[in-house]
């Protein structure tokens, strides 16, 4: 049952935020009660699709009316090294007739058409609000279709109204655990096989990391889910260790894979130089603990020394230009501190950062890094943000697309560090790229032109 799944997710023992709660608080779950007329953010279905759509060779079929797929397909920045099928929009586009008579047959026929025309290794079927309300049983349809067509047809039961994007990420993870992971065996395994969990290969960021791992002889058995192929996810239970990135979005996958398949994991980040090094070390350490030859540790240290030096050398030219520049950093939760440390590494001053989704532990860490004057922003209204920027309390804002125009309309440089971003910022390469982009935004010649009044306005002021 979906309700049981949701309760289970709310009880996630691997989530340290959850661990600080009382039993009573935990029962209430993690969803914030949304206020009609003042809510923002995507739904659970959105979250589920964000988490799984990066699997490239699968057909992602959205069972619902046109809004759920028609308004948003092919709009994510996950890159693929192979199949482009994940960028094809499939939907049952439910009509009034389906609402009256039920949409299960329509769904079944849609699956058949996809298999006939596109023959993917698997079809993922996403539930949405309307079919959930009328009682379409997608699990039963998927089961019947899998039998009939002899292919995995995976139900993703995360209709929008059950909660937030984050809940959707986790429900998607549950679907992989229930139906995909552990269903196929790899041709061979090595002591150097790892999973990377919660990395979506936005703008190709995985490819900034992969060469480092390749150099060390470490194989990504499966990335969940960036640039993944179906069989890789299905075989991921044979990895020796795992890294969980992107905060807590997929902690349930990491923890349950540890429980079921004894794959130890750590939580790490590839944003920032020191975080990248730490993550490489942690991967090597876990693999060696699991029996990989221990020369891996020394080889990893050598690589870190070389790559850190190379990155610092490339960053040196920016240091004088960026020293003392003030950054307002508005981003979701835990990602904050890794970016904060990265920016401080080049001498920038972080004048404020959002802590809306951060745990107490995260906040303590930010305080440690930024000092007591740290401007921790819990929930800033767009108007306050506009005023802060207009009053020139920051030289640049880094945030997601939602607040992009608040900065730009205040004539303040802005850089996208969220999922729609066009540049890849992971690893040593990515840090150099981030700093390069910050520099190019800050020093773009448009700012002085924009801030200068029109001649007639200047004359009027002078009079």
């Amino acid at each position, binding site marked *: 049952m979906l309700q049981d799944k949701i309760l289970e997710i709310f009880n996630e023992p691997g989530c340290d935020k959850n661990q600080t709660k009382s039993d009573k608080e935990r029962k209430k779950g993690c969803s914030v009660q*949304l*206020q*009609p*007329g*003042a*809510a*923002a953010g*995507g*739904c*659970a*279905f*959105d979250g589920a699709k964000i988490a799984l759509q990066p699997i490239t060779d699968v057909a992602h*079929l959205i069972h*619902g*009316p*046109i*809004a*759920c797929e*028609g*308004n*948003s*397909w*092919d*709009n994510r920045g996950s890159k693929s090294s192979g199949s*482009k099928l994940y*960028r*094809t*929009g*499939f*939907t*049952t*586009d*439910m*009509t*009034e007739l389906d*609402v009256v008579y039920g949409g299960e047959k*329509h769904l079944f*026929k*849609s*699956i*058949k*058409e996809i298999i006939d*025309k596109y023959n993917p290794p698997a079809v993922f079927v996403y539930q949405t*609000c*309307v079919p959930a*309300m*009328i009682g379409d049983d997608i699990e039963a349809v998927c089961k019947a279709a899998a039998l009939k067509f002899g292919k995995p047809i995976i139900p993703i039961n995360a*209709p*929008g*109204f059950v909660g937030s994007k984050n809940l959707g990420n986790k429900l998607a993870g549950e679907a992989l655990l229930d139906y995909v992971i552990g269903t196929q065996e790899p041709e061979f395994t090595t002591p150097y096989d790892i999973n990377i969990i919660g990395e979506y290969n936005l703008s190709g960021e995985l490819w900034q990391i992969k060469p480092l791992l390749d150099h060390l002889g470490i194989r990504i058995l499966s990335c969940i889910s960036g640039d993944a192929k179906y069989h890789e996810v299905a075989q991921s239970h044979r990895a020796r260790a795992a890294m969980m990135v992107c905060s807590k979005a997929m902690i349930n996958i990491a923890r349950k894979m540890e429980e079921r398949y004894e794959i130890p994991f750590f939580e790490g980040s590839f944003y920032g130089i020191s975080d990248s090094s730490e993550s490489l070390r942690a991967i090597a350490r876990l693999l060696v603990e699991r029996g990989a030859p221990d020369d891996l540790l020394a080889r990893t240290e050598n690589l870190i020394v070389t790559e850190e030096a190379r990155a610092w050398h490339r960053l040196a030219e920016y240091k004088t230009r960026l020293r003392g520049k003030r950054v307002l950093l508005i981003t979701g939760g835990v990602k904050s501190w890794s970016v904060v440390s990265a920016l401080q590494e080049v001498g920038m001053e972080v004048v404020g950062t959002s802590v809306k989704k951060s745990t107490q532990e995260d906040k303590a860490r930010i305080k440690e890094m930024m000092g007591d004057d740290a401007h921790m922003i819990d929930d800033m209204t*767009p*108007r306050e943000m*506009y*005023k802060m920027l207009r009053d020139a309390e920051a030289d640049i804002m880094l945030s997601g*697309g939602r607040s*992009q*125009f*608040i900065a730009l*309309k205040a*004539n303040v440089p802005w850089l996208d560090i969220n999922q729609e971003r066009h540049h890849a910022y992971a690893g040593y390469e990515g840090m150099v790229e981030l700093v390069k982009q910050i520099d190019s935004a800050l020093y773009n010649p448009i700012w002085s032109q924009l801030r200068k009044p029109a001649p007639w306005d200047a004359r009027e002021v002078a009079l």
Partner: protein
Amino acid sequence: MSKVSLSRKACTVNPLKLSQPVGGALAFLGLADCMPLLHGSQGCTAFGLVLFVRHFRETIPLQTTAMNEVATVLGGVENIGKAILTIHQKTKPRIIGICSTGVTETKGDDVDGYLRTFMAEHPELGDLAVVYVSTPDFKDAFQDGWSKAVRNIIQAVAEPSVEPILGLVNFLVGSHLTVADIEELREMSESFGLIPTFLPDLSGSLDGHIPDDFSPTTLGGTPLDAIRHLGSAELTIALGEQMRPAAEALMLKTGQPYVLFDRLTGLEPNDQLLDCFSQLSGQPVPNKYRRQRSQLLDAMLDGHFFIGGQKIAIGAEPDLLWNLSMWLSELGAEITAAITTTHSPLLEQVPCNEVIIGDLEDLETRAHGCDLLMTTAHGRQAAERLGIPLLRMGLPIFDRLGATHRLSVGYRGTRDLLFEVGNLLMANAHEGHPQRWPLPGESHAHSTVIPG
């Protein structure tokens, strides 16, 4: 002329259609001091928001009644009231435009009845106008949502007219027209001394300008008072067949006559429009437009070599499809595939053998051998696979700058669009090469030269 059919597939692949509520919401975004509100789950709003942010590259005010599972199943019409109070308190709009969604229409609350009671119980809301439009996702399309929203705005806000004021003219603007199109029509009508009102007016709200201060609602658009006084114009000009219901509603309410222009790209429709302005104002057509007309004639002369005989595949909402296909066929192009999203009385007259209410997969399979694809940015994958150029038209266009500053009405707009189409075709012309003209098998066998 054309056979209209529904795609018979169970599975829609690469949708062209956008949902009805976001069409309604965009119409509300063309009103000043407005906050559009989708009555549905928060995701309904989030997807609409991202869609518009990427197309317009602007902040989009758009709220949600945030229906959760319990509210959806047990009935959550009270969420509308809560949302109105919150929005009123936080952002102080003068108008709130509410569109229902599939989530709330499946249960089917009596929203109109609820709103009457609610507004009566809340006198503190003062003269806040609230317009509701029923737009289930599982019916109709974007253009329909827009059309119904404008009709309902008129029904709810426009006042019965007094005496018409000389020179006032209303434009009821279809969803297929851009900000640039509205600006062009304003300039054209004003040059006859006419005073135009546009409903909706995206040129005030989403033209991409830098406001002096922050605003949580729309940055401009048709003012509420202007909608109230629509009845005092001499004439209403409806732009696009989709605006007929709104024009009818206005006529019913104010007794005001209307004329409908179903398209404004091309020579003849603009001749008629300027003639209409001239007769209404009693002014001659200004020299500027006589010159522009002449320029368009010349562009047609220069361009027909490249456009005539070319095969073009179009995927667009009915009014845009009508506009483009009629104009291109007047330039001698052949419309080989026409895909649209929803029903319209115009579809049977589209100059193409068949019009399919379908998706971009339908367009792609029928576009083999075509020279040009015209559809939204979502056509980019198909164009790449087909190896033909894509001219982005419609919404969304998320991978190009200035989507809404693309002009295609008036002589000038027609001329520039003609150049753009002609240039794409010219750049992609099939050049001759040694193997391009082989003889057919039989005669080929007899023509082999034996060496020696």
